[in-house]
């Protein structure tokens, strides 16, 4: 409970969190956020920039930045790292052909200094598909055990049937709040 924590909390607006959501294209990022807010998910199209969603969740105001994952957009991700409290990496668990690509992009982004303080939530999406890789296998392929310097959690989910989405966000928000809003309790 150092001075830095106090300054950090005083400096930011009341109980706000900035969450950055990235991952390869077609992983389901936009659909997950829509599902979180209970919106229609039948009309989602590829994100050609960002979708920002500002909403209240468990007493916090979340600003979720869902940035498009197409190859041409990935070089721009770094423009959104600043002040990020939570990083959500979304994986298409059934896109086995691109898992290696997915692993490399994830580990590249974790090298970013401006994200060192961010909690990491990996959402293993599309678990409703029969070909989806299960959590432990996915964790191995993505080498999550090598991530030791930050709070990290993997949650299986399906944006289509809603399973796991809330649980993932609940973990993330709880982890962030215990780090930066420790005086609230």
């Amino acid at each position: 409970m150092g001075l830095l924590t106090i300054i950090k909390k005083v400096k930011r607006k009341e109980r706000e969190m900035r969450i950055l959501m990235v991952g390869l294209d077609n992983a389901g990022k936009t659909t997950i956020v829509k599902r979180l807010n209970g919106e229609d998910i039948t009309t989602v199209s590829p994100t050609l920039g960002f979708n920002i969603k500002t909403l209240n969740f468990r007493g916090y105001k979340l600003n979720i930045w869902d940035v498009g994952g197409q190859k041409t957009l990935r070089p721009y991700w770094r423009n959104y790292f600043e002040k990020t409290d939570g990083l959500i990496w979304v994986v298409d668990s059934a896109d086995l052909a691109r898992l290696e690509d997915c692993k490399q992009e994830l580990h590249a982004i974790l090298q970013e200094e401006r994200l060192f303080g961010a909690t990491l939530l990996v959402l293993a999406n599309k678990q409703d598909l029969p070909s989806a890789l299960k959590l432990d296998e996915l964790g191995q392929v993505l080498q999550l055990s090598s991530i030791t310097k930050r709070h990290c959690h993997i949650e299986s989910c399906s944006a289509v049937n809603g399973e796991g989405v809330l649980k993932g966000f609940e973990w993330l928000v709880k982890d962030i709040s215990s780090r930066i809003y420790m005086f609230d309790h």
Partner: protein
Amino acid sequence: MSVTPQKVLQTIKSPTPRYLCPLDANKYGVEFLKFVVADNDSKTVVYESPSLEGLSLADLPPVENEDQLRSVKYTFPRNFLKFNTVRTALEFKIGPQPLNDFRMIELHYFKNKLVRTYDFSFGFCIPNSVNTWEAIYDLPEYKDDQILEYVKNPYGHKSDSFYFVGQELIMHNKAEYQYV
């Protein structure tokens, strides 16, 4: 004298008598594509802007004054004021240049008095991107006599929206609202 975010936040307390930047201040090609207002609990849409995509300039009705292009009048059902949570969604396009530090400040007035301020920083915008910003927020709890006030004063509720790139004002839009 240039109009900065600080100046807007500190000095403007009632609707501005004129626009604080010319239309061509938007040299970055920022374009609004869609605006939706909905009740977030029932998901009922109360306003959806007509889609401008695919329309050419010739399709648009002639305007006498170009300022008409940046003012809009909204009619909302009065039960809007009883919604618990509202969802607004804005979709916009960015020109070929990247934008740094893109920010919106919107001031709302009722009977010429400032009642609410929204200040949101989009930050960086990718060149040629299409972006959305959805805000889901709780409405203040209006008492019945307050609602009646809004209903009895059509267009008494006004707003000024200012869009900045860094310290530079690039767009200024106005809106008026009535509740029926």
